[in-house]
């Protein structure tokens, strides 16, 4: 019986952790392990670059006209791609559509990957 209780307790704790991770900032966690610290939870965000900085980019997305600005920090380990080619932070352009995977660190939202999406114009619409 105590084994069942322990299993149930572990399940509840794991579920609570998952719910907290999911709702922490409204973005979608794509990979996590209960054994890892919260900062290793990976999120994805798709939005439009509003501004590029020395160490990151500002990305806009949101619900309806309730828009949200998210600062994404980039470091040497961040992989940035456009059309399957590796590019640098400096090559990212204002107005580009990007999908970012990131995790939260003491430096903020740290990008692991940034992928530039094809522009609507290039899709002929």
């Amino acid at each position, binding site marked *: 019986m105590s084994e069942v209780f322990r299993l149930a307790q572990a399940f509840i704790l794991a579920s609570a952790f998952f719910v907290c991770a999911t*709702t922490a900032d*409204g973005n979608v966690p794509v990979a996590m392990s209960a054994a890892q610290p919260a900062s290793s939870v990976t999120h994805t965000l*798709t*939005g*439009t670059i*509003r501004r590029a900085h020395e160490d990151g980019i500002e990305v*806009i*997305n*949101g*619900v*309806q*006209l*309730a*828009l*949200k*600005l998210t600062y994404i920090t980039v470091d040497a380990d961040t992989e940035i791609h456009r059309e399957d080619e590796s590019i640098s932070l400096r090559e990212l352009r*204002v*107005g580009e*559509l990007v999908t970012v995977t990131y995790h939260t660190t003491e430096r903020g939202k740290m990008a692991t990957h940034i992928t530039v*999406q094809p522009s*609507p114009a290039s899709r*002929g*619409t």
Partner: protein
Amino acid sequence: MNMNAETVRKLALVVGVVFLASACEKPPEPGDPLPGLTSEQLRKFEQGREVFNRVFTQETGLGPLFNADSCVECHEDPVVGGSGDEVELHATRLDENGFCDPLIESGGPVFQLEVTALLNDALDIDSEPVPDNADRARRTTPDIFGFGLLDAVPDATLLDLADPNDADGDGISGRVGRDFSGRIGRFGRKALVATLQEFNEGAFQIEQGVTTPNVAEEGTVGDQPIPDGVDPLPEPEIDADSVRLVDAFVRFLAPPAPLELSSAGRHGRRIFSDIGCAACHVPSLRTGANEVAALAYKEVQAYTDLLLHDMGSELADICLGPAATRSEFRTEPLMGLRLSQVFLHDGRADSIEAAIIAHGGEGAASREAFLKLAPEERDALLAFLRSL
């Protein structure tokens, strides 16, 4: 299997009764639910209308910045879900890179015109301040009849209708709107909003300052956080169930059935196509697969293509989002047009005729054709439009 004459007569009677019953089904009045909803969907529609009518106070989540204290304060005429006489303020800025900045840090792109007493006491302001160098636009309240059907039109339909480079040479070059996440937009005057669910949920925060589970931040006031103590309720200020019910109410609102056409109205309908109005105000769209049977595979007489069109300098105001330039607007649906009191995105036209004459850009050729119509032809066209 042989059927005797009596059985055939009975079957014919049953078929006849069923046919007559369906033929006599009352067409939807403004504010009615879609025909064919299940009892459970009708229950949600009614419950959603109650939330739609709910009046918020600063103690129950209103503000601290807001445009209205309930959904129905704006969507009220002639019935709940209709249009309203409120005009709100949007502002953006086209920056030096050619990027349309929605002024998020300043609280944009919607700048609320009301504040709660608590915020007024704290900052001594009556509305949200707008940055000096912003472009401003007025936006009227549209009715939201039939929006569930518009939401159910597949993206592929919009892509099929789009002709961004005017490949067919008809002078009309509609293109799809996009939101900041790259999705195809269809709601809002600049087609920035991709789904009806987001259109509904976002409105709580933007219009009423009521935060929701998916829009759980209040935003800022003039680049500064909301002062302590002026927003007493913790976020979110409305629960997910209430948001879902309002979504059900809006989603299940039927488009008002067009009035029966007179012979002049029927002539006007032909003129509508002949002078090119129907190139953008596409008379009918078809919905796709949908988990709600009442929304699936239906023809909706929307009179829109849900695309962005360049309306020229005559109507231009602000850019919005990654797609819409200052002069681009999404084709306004004309279903329920007869119920409107003012026309165009900013309400500048006080009649349908004035709205047609204000068209520029891609609509200029149709405007000129309208102006060349004989008086009786012009009356016929207006008779048709007043039937919608």
